[in-house]
C-alpha cells in the first residue's frame, strides 16, 4: 500500500521468425512495460504495417467526423456486444463496405450542407432586392448608365439628391430590409464621380454580393425567384435528413462491428510497430522490459524463448505501478497530479486517503452539508454535473474523493453540533461530556486552535520521518541524519515554541518557563546538523517550519467562516419567516445554503489539498517517476484469437 508494486527487469531472446507471435502473446498478457533496447541494431516495422496504419487512419477520420452520431447511438446500444477476431477477419470485406458507404454518405452530407448554405444566402440577398421592388431585368450592362446597390445610414429621397447633384439624370429605388435602408441608384456614367462622393457622405456601403445574384438570375421579379429557391431548399433539407437517417441506421446496426474493427486494427498495428523498440541480430530478437514480480510466471511460460531476469542497474529506474485497495484508488489521482512517485519512494496515496478527507471534514464540519454531499456523490448527481462542466474522466475521481470526505464532514458536524448552521443536534443525539466543540464561541476557537496545531505538528513529523526513510534508502543513512534529522530537530524546536509560548499567548495564559532556552538549543543543534552535512543554505528555510505549523490553523479558520456564513443565512431567512415573509425567507435559506455548500465543496477541497501539497509533500515527496504502461491494449469490443 505504501510502496508501488515491485518490478523485475527481464530480457526475452528468441528466434526472429517468432517475434510477431511473441509480441501478440505479450500484448494479450498486458504485463510487460517495454523498454527501448539499446546496444544492438533495432528492428524494423513488420510486414503489412503501413497498410494497417493507412486503414486505421482513414477509419479514424470517419469515426471522428461521426463523433456526435456515435455518442447518440452508443447511449442507446448498451450493453457492449463483443466480437471475436476470427469473425472480424471473416467479415472484413463487409465491414470495409460499410465504412466506405459511411464515407460517401458523409461526403454527400457535406455537399448538401454547403449547397444549403449557398441557397440560404442567395435567398437573403434576393430579399434585399425584393424590398426595392424592382425586376432583375434592369440590372443589365448599359453603355451609358451605371448603377450601385447598397446600404445607407439615412433614408434618401429623390428631391434631396437632385439638389445635391444638380442634375436629374438618375433614378433611385429605396427599400427597407432587416432594419437597414437599402438604396439602388441608376445614373449616367458622367455623373459617377459626383454620385460616389455624395453617397460617401451619406455613409453608403455597397453590397457587392448583390451583383453576383443579378448576374446569375438575369430576369424575373425577386419574389418569384425566392419562391422557386424555397422549393429547392425544402428538397435539399429533406435530402439532408434522409442522409442523416441513413447514417444513423447504419450506425445502429453496425456500430459495435465498426468499433471492434478499429480495436482489431489498433491491436495489429501496435504489434507491427513494436519491433522499433526491440533489438535484433541476424537470427534473433532481444526484448527488454519491466514486469510486476507477481506476473513474472505468465511470461516465463512462453515456449522456446530464452527468458532471464536482469539485475537492476543505477541508470534504469523501474516504472511505477501504484497498488492500493479500491477505496484508496481515487486518491492516487491527487498524488499523480502532483507527480508520479518514483519507484523507490513511498506512495503517499493511503496517507492522503486518511488526511485529505479528515481535513476536509474538520473544515466543512456540518451534518446537514455532509449528508447532502453524501447524497450528491453516492447517487452520481455530482459526477454527471461535473461531466457536463467538462471535467471528463476526473469527474468520477472527484466524486469518489468527496464521497469519503462527506463521511468525515458528518462526523465533525456531530462534534461541532451543527446542522445547516443550526445547533440543534444536541437536543436529539447523546453527547459525551467533552463534546460538542462549539466553534462559534471563544472557548471552542481556542480548543480548535490547539487541536489544529497539534494535527499540523503530527502531520509534519510524519512527513519528515518518511522523508528520512526515503533519503536513507536512496542516499544512505548519513545523508538522511544530516538533512532530515536536522529538520526533525528544528521541527521539535518549533513545537516547543508553539506549545510553550505561542499557544499560551493566544489563550491568554502564562507561558511554560524554560521553553525559550530549549527552543534555541534545538534550533541551533538542528542547524548544526544541516551545516555539517553541507546544507548550510537550507538554514534560511528555518522560519518556514513555524509558518508550516501555523498554516494548519486554516483548518479552524476556514471552518469558522463557513459556519458563520451558514448561521448568517439562517438568521436572515428565519428573520423574514418570523416577520411573515415565508417565501422570501425560504428562498434566502435555500439559495444561501446552496451557495455555502458550493463554496464548501471548493474551499475546503483546495485548502485540504494545499496542506498535502505544500506542507506535507515538501517534507518527503519528490515524484518524477514513470507510469507503468504495459504493452498491449484494453479489449473493449473484441475477443482476441485463442
Amino acid at each position, binding site marked *: 500500500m505504501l510502496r508501488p508494486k515491485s518490478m523485475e527487469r527481464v530480457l526475452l531472446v528468441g528466434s526472429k521468425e517468432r517475434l510477431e507471435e511473441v509480441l501478440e502473446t505479450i500484448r494479450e498478457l498486458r504485463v510487460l512495460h517495454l523498454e527501448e533496447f539499446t546496444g544492438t541494431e533495432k528492428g524494423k516495422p513488420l510486414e503489412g504495417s503501413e497498410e494497417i496504419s493507412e486503414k486505421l487512419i482513414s477509419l479514424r477520420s470517419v469515426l471522428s467526423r461521426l463523433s456526435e452520431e456515435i455518442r447518440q447511438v452508443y447511449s442507446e446500444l448498451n450493453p457492449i456486444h463483443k466480437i471475436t477476431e476470427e469473425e472480424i477477419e471473416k467479415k472484413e470485406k463487409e465491414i470495409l463496405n460499410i465504412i466506405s458507404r459511411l464515407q460517401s454518405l458523409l461526403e454527400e452530407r457535406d455537399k448538401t450542407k454547403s449547397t444549403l448554405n449557398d441557397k440560404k444566402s442567395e435567398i437573403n440577398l434576393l430579399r434585399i432586392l425584393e424590398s426595392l421592388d424592382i425586376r432583375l431585368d434592369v440590372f443589365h450592362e448599359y453603355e451609358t448608365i451605371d448603377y450601385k446597390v447598397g446600404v445607407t445610414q439615412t433614408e434618401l429621397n429623390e428631391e434631396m439628391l437632385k439638389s445635391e447633384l444638380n442634375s436629374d439624370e438618375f433614378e433611385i429605388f429605396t427599400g427597407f430590409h432587416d432594419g437597414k435602408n437599402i438604396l439602388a441608384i441608376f445614373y449616367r456614367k458622367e455623373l459617377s464621380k459626383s454620385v460616389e462622393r455624395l453617397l460617401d457622405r451619406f455613409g453608403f456601403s455597397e453590397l457587392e454580393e448583390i451583383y453576383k445574384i443579378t448576374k446569375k438570375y438575369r430576369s424575373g421579379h425577386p419574389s418569384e425567384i425566392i419562391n422557386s429557391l424555397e422549393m429547392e431548399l425544402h428538397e435539399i433539407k429533406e435530402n439532408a435528413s434522409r442522409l442523416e437517417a441513413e447514417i444513423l441506421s447504419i450506425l445502429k446496426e453496425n456500430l459495435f462491428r465498426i468499433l471492434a474493427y478499429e480495436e482489431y486494427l489498433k491491436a495489429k498495428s501496435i504489434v507491427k510497430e513494436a519491433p522499433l523498440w526491440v533489438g535484433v541480430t541476424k537470427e534473433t530478437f532481444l526484448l527488454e522490459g519491466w514486469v510486476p514480480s507477481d506476473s513474472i510466471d505468465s511470461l516465463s511460460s512462453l515456449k522456446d524463448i530464452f527468458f532471464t531476469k536482469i539485475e537492476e542497474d543505477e541508470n534504469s529506474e523501474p516504472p511505477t505501478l501504484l497498488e492500493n485497495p479500491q477505496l484508496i484508488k481515487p486518491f492516487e489521482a491527487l498524488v499523480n*497530479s*502532483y*507527480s508520479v512517485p518514483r519507484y523507490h519512494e513511498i506512495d503517499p496515496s493511503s496517507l492522503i486517503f486518511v488526511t485529505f478527507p479528515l481535513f476536509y471534514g474538520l473544515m466543512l464540519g456540518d451534518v446537514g452539508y455532509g449528508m447532502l454531499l453524501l447524497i450528491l456523490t453516492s447517487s452520481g448527481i455530482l459526477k454527471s454535473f461535473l461531466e457536463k462542466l467538462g471535467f471528463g474522466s476526473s469527474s468520477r475521481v472527484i466524486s469518489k474523493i468527496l464521497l469519503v470526505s462527506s463521511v468525515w464532514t458528518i462526523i465533525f458536524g456531530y462534534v461541532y453540533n451543527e446542522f445547516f448552521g443550526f445547533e440543534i443536534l444536541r437536543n436529539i443525539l447523546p453527547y459525551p461530556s467533552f463534546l460538542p466543540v462549539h466553534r462559534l464561541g471563544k472557548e471552542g*476557537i481556542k480548543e480548535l*486552535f490547539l487541536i489544529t496545531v497539534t494535527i499540523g505538528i503530527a502531520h509534519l513529523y510524519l512527513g519528515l520521518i518518511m522523508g528520512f526513510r526515503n533519503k536513507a534508502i536512496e542516499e544512505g543513512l548519513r545523508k538522511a541524519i544530516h538533512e532530515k534529522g536536522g529538520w526533525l530537530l528544528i521541527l521539535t524546536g518549533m513545537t516547543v515554541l508553539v506549545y510553550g509560548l*505561542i499557544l499560551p*499567548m*493566544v*489563550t*491568554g495564559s502564562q507561558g511554560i518557563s524554560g521553553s525559550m532556552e530549549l527552543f534555541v538549543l534545538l534550533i541551533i543543534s538542528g542547524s548544526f546538523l544541516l551545516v555539517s552535512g553541507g546544507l548550510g543554505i537550507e538554514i534560511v528555510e528555518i522560519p518556514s517550519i513555524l*509558518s508550516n505549523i*501555523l*498554516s494548519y*490553523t*486554516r483548518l479552524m*479558520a476556514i471552518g469558522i467562516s463557513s459556519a458563520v456564513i451558514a448561521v448568517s443565512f439562517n438568521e436572515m431567512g428565519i428573520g423574514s419567516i418570523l416577520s411573515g415573509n415565508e417565501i422570501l425567507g425560504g428562498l434566502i435559506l435555500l439559495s444561501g445554503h446552496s451557495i455555502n455548500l458550493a463554496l464548501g465543496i471548493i474551499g475546503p477541497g*483546495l485548502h485540504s*489539498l*494545499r496542506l498535502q*501539497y*505544500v506542507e506535507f509533500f515538501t517534507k518527503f515527496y519528490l515524484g518524477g517517476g514513470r507510469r507503468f504502461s504495459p504493452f498491449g491494449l484494453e479489449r473493449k469490443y473484441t475477443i482476441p484469437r485463442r
Partner: protein
Amino acid sequence: MEVGVEGYKAIGAALAIGLTGLAAGIAEKEIGAAAVGAMAEEERLFAKGLILTVIPETIVIFGLIIAMRLLP
C-alpha cells in the same frame, strides 16, 4: 469621544487581519495570473501552480494569530 484600551485592541486586530489579507491578495494576484498562464500551456503544472499561488496565504494566518493574541 474617547477610545478605550479595548477599542484600540479591536482596531489593532482588525488592521492585523485586514492588512495581511490585502497583502496576501496582492502577492497572490501576480503569482496566480502567471500560474494560470502556465497551466493553460501545460495542464500538468496544476499542482505546482497551486503550491506557488498559495504560498503568500500564510501571511493572513500570522495576522489571524496576532488578532487572536490581541482579543483573548
